[in-house]
């Protein structure tokens, strides 16, 4: 028995947990090394950590459960504002506690939206979450005595502990982001292996059949939405720490659509895909900027190009995989399983 | 008029039709008989363009129908009454008839064909006339089948594909429908491909018949001959 097999026999949570720790250490070292080469990339990597958390939540909802949310950007705003407000009152509160508070508040908001939309699913959840994305910034502006209107609330920067005072600020920020990201991915990967994960997928495939098999469809869908919303709340909290700000302008409708783009690019339905998609979302504007420098595009074209290209990605992905990227993935898996079987037969 | 050769149809690995050959003459009734699951409906659907065959040829008046859309096949003069009638429940009787796009006529009388066709249907099936402006979902089973057959008439088709027009009807209505089909066939000089569970009544009006089982042609001969062949009856139609 190899070490890995022995660990695996102790349960998936442990396996995933160990993998998570390894991942944190490995990426943490890479980030440190990278910082001496290019500090800005490290700053962007901390954006990747929170985008990936939100995208992972959306993966559970959309990829695994087949429901669409256009409001995850707004749910991130709830997390970010919670963080800002909590820190306004308790300035030195431990970030872990602040993040948990943000998760809880966002989860409660998700229950309200999700429970209503679960009555009739499909386009209703998409429409309701669209309403959230469009409507929420107005609340911050209307109640500006609390939320400071368009300016938004500032969030104090995270400072590294004295023992690690040599660590540059952006590296510390990226490290701090890695931990909740890894925890989120480990817990979600684990959850998708449990009965809940199976129920999510069963409902995605066939709601009626799932109901006949005794799955409580509405309840399960609300659970998926709330779980996914909780991830967005955590992501928003981390985003507030990263940008030192919670302001309505940071959470436009297009943020929600970018998150959707991340999971479409990454291959709707897989957690690793959410990571790849988030990397693309965060770095694509830079690449397009480089492209633009070469081609000397006018500024209004350059500014809009990333979003328009995400739109093209949506359409190409849907047309190239008429039965869903899920279907494409499933076919790929079947094909690989077939090859493996063929290889085994040969051996 | 219609030639089918070596037709093979599969549904995701399940073979429904396997090497069917069929020749439908310019006029007269061809009955297609066979047990449940024999592939009768599949045959009609494939001719109507709803199901794509894996192999084989279908030609209508010398022109191939393969790859032609269902709506275009109707316009060439083939009209199908699907199993269960397929009336549009949300529309009224009148609308169900009016929505039919009649076969294109060369002559100048083409325009009025639809309108007079509807009046003809009303004369033919008096119960429908009484319910002309009621929604189709409020019709009884028999009225629904009348509407379905009536719709095929409005289309002015030269070839009617009827899938179990007597499904679920009381004997009285079965006779009415069968007599109507026969009358139409004679008066309008058209050809009918009639799928039926009710073998006896189908054979009583048919000119020729084919027997399908498990996707293969078991027999194809004059209707009278088939009616007399006890062996085939026992083996495939279960009498």
């Amino acid at each position, binding site marked *: 028995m190899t070490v890995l097999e022995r660990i695996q026999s102790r349960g998936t949570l442990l396996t995933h947990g160990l993998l998570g720790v390894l991942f944190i250490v490995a990426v943490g070292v890479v980030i440190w090394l990278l910082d001496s080469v290019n500090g800005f990339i490290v700053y962007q990597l901390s954006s990747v950590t929170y985008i990936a958390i939100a995208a992972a939540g959306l993966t559970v909802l959309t990829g695994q459960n087949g429901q669409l949310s256009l409001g995850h950007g707004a749910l991130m705003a709830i997390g970010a504002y919670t963080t800002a407000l909590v820190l306004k009152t308790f300035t030195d509160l431990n970030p872990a506690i602040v993040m948990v508070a943000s998760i809880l508040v966002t989860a409660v908001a998700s229950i309200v939206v999700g429970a*209503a939309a679960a009555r009739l699913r499909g386009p209703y959840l998409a429409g*309701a979450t669209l309403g959230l994305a469009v409507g929420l910034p*107005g609340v911050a502006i209307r109640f500006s005595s609390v939320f400071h209107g368009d300016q938004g609330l500032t969030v104090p920067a995270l400072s590294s502990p004295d023992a690690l005072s040599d660590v540059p600020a952006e590296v510390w920020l990226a490290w701090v982001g890695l931990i909740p990201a890894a925890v989120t991915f480990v817990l979600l990967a684990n959850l998708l292996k449990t009965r809940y994960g199976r129920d999510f997928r069963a409902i995605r495939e066939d709601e009626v059949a799932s109901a006949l098999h005794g799955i409580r469809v509405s309840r399960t869908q609300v659970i998926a939405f709330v779980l996914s919303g909780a991830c967005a709340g955590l992501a928003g909290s981390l985003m507030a720490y990263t940008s030192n700000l919670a302001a309505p302008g940071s959470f436009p409708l297009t943020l929600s659509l970018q998150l959707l783009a991340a999971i479409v690019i990454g291959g709707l339905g897989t957690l690793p895909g959410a990571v790849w998609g988030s990397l693309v979302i965060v770095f694509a504007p830079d690449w397009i900027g480089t492209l633009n420098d070469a081609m000397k595009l006018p500024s209004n074209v350059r500014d809009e190009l990333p979003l328009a290209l995400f739109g093209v990605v949506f359409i190409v992905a849907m*047309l190239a995989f008429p039965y869903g990227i899920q279907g494409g993935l499933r076919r790929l898996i079947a094909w690989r399983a077939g090859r493996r079987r063929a290889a085994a037969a040969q051996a | 008029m219609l030639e089918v050769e070596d037709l093979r149809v599969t549904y995701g690995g399940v073979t429904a039709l396997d090497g069917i050959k069929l020749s439908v003459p310019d006029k007269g009734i061809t009955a297609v008989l066979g047990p449940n699951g024999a592939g009768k409906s599949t045959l009609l659907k494939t001719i109507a363009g709803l199901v794509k065959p894996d192999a084989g040829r279908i030609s209508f008046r010398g022109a191939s129908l393969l790859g032609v859309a269902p709506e275009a096949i109707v316009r060439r003069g083939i009209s199908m009454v699907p199993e269960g009638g397929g009336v549009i429940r949300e529309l009224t009787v009148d609308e169900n008839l009016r929505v039919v*796009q009649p076969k294109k006529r060369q002559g100048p009388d083409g325009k009025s064909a639809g309108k007079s066709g509807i009046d003809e249907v009303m004369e033919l099936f008096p119960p429908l006339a009484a319910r002309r402006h009621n929604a189709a979902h409020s019709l009884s089973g028999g009225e629904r089948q009348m509407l379905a057959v009536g719709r095929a008439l409005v289309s002015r088709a030269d070839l009617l594909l009827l899938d179990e027009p007597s499904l679920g009807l009381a004997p009285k209505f079965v006779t009415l429908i069968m007599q109507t089909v026969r009358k139409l066939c004679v008066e309008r000089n058209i050809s009918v491909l009639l799928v039926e569970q009710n073998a006896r009544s189908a054979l009583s009006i048919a000119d020729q018949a084919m027997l399908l089982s498990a996707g293969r042609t078991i027999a194809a001969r004059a209707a009278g001959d088939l009616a007399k062949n006890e062996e085939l009856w026992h083996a495939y139609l279960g009498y």
Partner: protein
Amino acid sequence: MNYFIVLTLTGIAAGMIYSALALALVLIWRATRIVNFAQGAMAMTTTYIALAVIRATDNYWLGFVAALLAGLVLGAIAERFLVRWVETGPPLNAVILTLGLFLILEGVVPMIWGAQIQSFPAPFSIAATQVGDTFIALSHFNLFTIGLVLLVMLAMLVFFRFTAIGLQMRASAFAPDIARLLGVRVGRLLSLGWGIASLTGAIAGLLVAPTLLLYPSNMDSILVYGFTAAVLGGLDSPVGALVGGLAIGMALSYIGGYLGGDLESIGALVILIGILMVRPQGIFVHSAERRA
């Protein structure tokens, strides 16, 4: 004039616009069981086209007609070349596709015309109407809005009830496979249906821009209001879209007037959630509740 009455009247005028967008959503939902989340972006695009034509010709009505034609063409093209390929797949794919269209339009329009806020002309005065000594909250443009949307609704009713093409479109929407067997060219009618819906949306775009101004995301909130109105009306019913739009228009007008204009959008969400909780099938659907 009594503040409440003022709010009611302006709410009715705004509600008519939401009705028009709701009608566009309903027409597409009936034909293809898809909620077109690009409807607002398409209306925004056709309004920019109208503005370009108005500036070039100095004639509002030429721009008006151009927007309607552009809507017709844009909708038909979207159905024929994009939506057609996902109609039979999972509904999620169709929604993501319309969102792709949304992003492309909201990205490409500012590339052509810039992202800045622009004013848009109205064919009639947008100032309150004066009768004798009293001012009535409705402007001439409001009256034009109400009349135009009612006219569109009436035209749709006549079209779907009394014309052969309208009948074929209804048949295609109810039972596409059966309609095909009756010789109806379902594909073409779907394109036409999307075209007509987008034309209706284009009208909403033209009516929004004079008061709310024109910029690439100016229809985002209107899309939410239109969707809420459509859901209130049952998503399947054109009459429901009209009544739903009026109800939402008045409700949001009260919210804006008494609680603050910034809360209108979130107010629409609260109403939407309320409807989904209390009467998810909407107020105008007689058939059993539909699931998407």
